[in-house]
């Protein structure tokens, strides 16, 4: 390898280290069963979405609640029981089965909510004679809710269908 390439790769490595992501990847995160946090995230997000539908003029309050649910939701895959694809720790056959089932439920929940949500928004828009901006806001809220579902439902499923094993 040429001297130029060595220096280039060393600088690229240093730049990558500077982001802090390699350190996070090396760190052995202790995963645990999170049984109540996903419920809290989902309750906030679903409540926020329902609030926005019920009171379109103050839908921003609902948006705030969904954001809170999302803020909790982003930490669930990091600290929950589901091991990610390509993670630093071994995902054995049990982990893969748990992950497979959890994401099956997660995607089913997202699909169902998307179909239910879009028809609900459409129906309420017709009944309430909503303006274009309100409809766009409601669709944005629904998208945000789907993100929270994607983050929280797999962790919720994996946390409730398995029980922690004590160390021997």
């Amino acid at each position, binding site marked *: 390898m040429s001297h130029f390439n060595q220096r280039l790769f060393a600088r690229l490595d240093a730049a990558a280290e500077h982001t802090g992501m390699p350190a996070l990847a090396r760190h052995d995160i202790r995963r645990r069963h999170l049984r109540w946090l996903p419920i809290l995230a989902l309750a906030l997000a679903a409540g926020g979405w329902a609030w926005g539908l019920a009171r379109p003029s103050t839908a921003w309050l609902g948006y705030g609640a969904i954001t809170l649910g999302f803020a909790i939701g982003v930490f669930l895959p990091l600290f929950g029981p589901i091991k990610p694809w390509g993670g630093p720790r071994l995902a054995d056959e049990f982990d893969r089965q748990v992950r497979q089932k959890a994401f099956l439920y997660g995607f089913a929940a997202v699909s169902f909510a998307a179909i239910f949500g879009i028809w609900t928004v459409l129906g309420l828009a017709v009944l309430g004679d909503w303006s274009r901006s309100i409809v766009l806001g409601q669709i944005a809220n629904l998208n945000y809710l789907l993100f929270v579902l994607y983050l929280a439902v797999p962790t919720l499923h994996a946390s409730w269908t398995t*029980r922690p*094993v004590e160390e021997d």
Partner: protein
Amino acid sequence: MPQIHNRIALFRAERGMSRRALAEAVGVNPQTIGYLERGDYSPSLELGMKIAAVFEAPVELLFSFTPFESVAAALRRAAE
């Protein structure tokens, strides 16, 4: 799917083997051995055969579709 009963904990105790040691020998996480012993998870054929190989025992001695007789019951029966 029928539950698969196993005697992993018994074999492990007999050998004085920790979950971690068995897990390392068969290439899984120690928690997975715990889930197997508790009956929460049925192993793949590959994992079942690997575990049997570690204990140098036939697979049917370790895994069964019907519950295994308890050690106490087996001892009582042997004494009769």
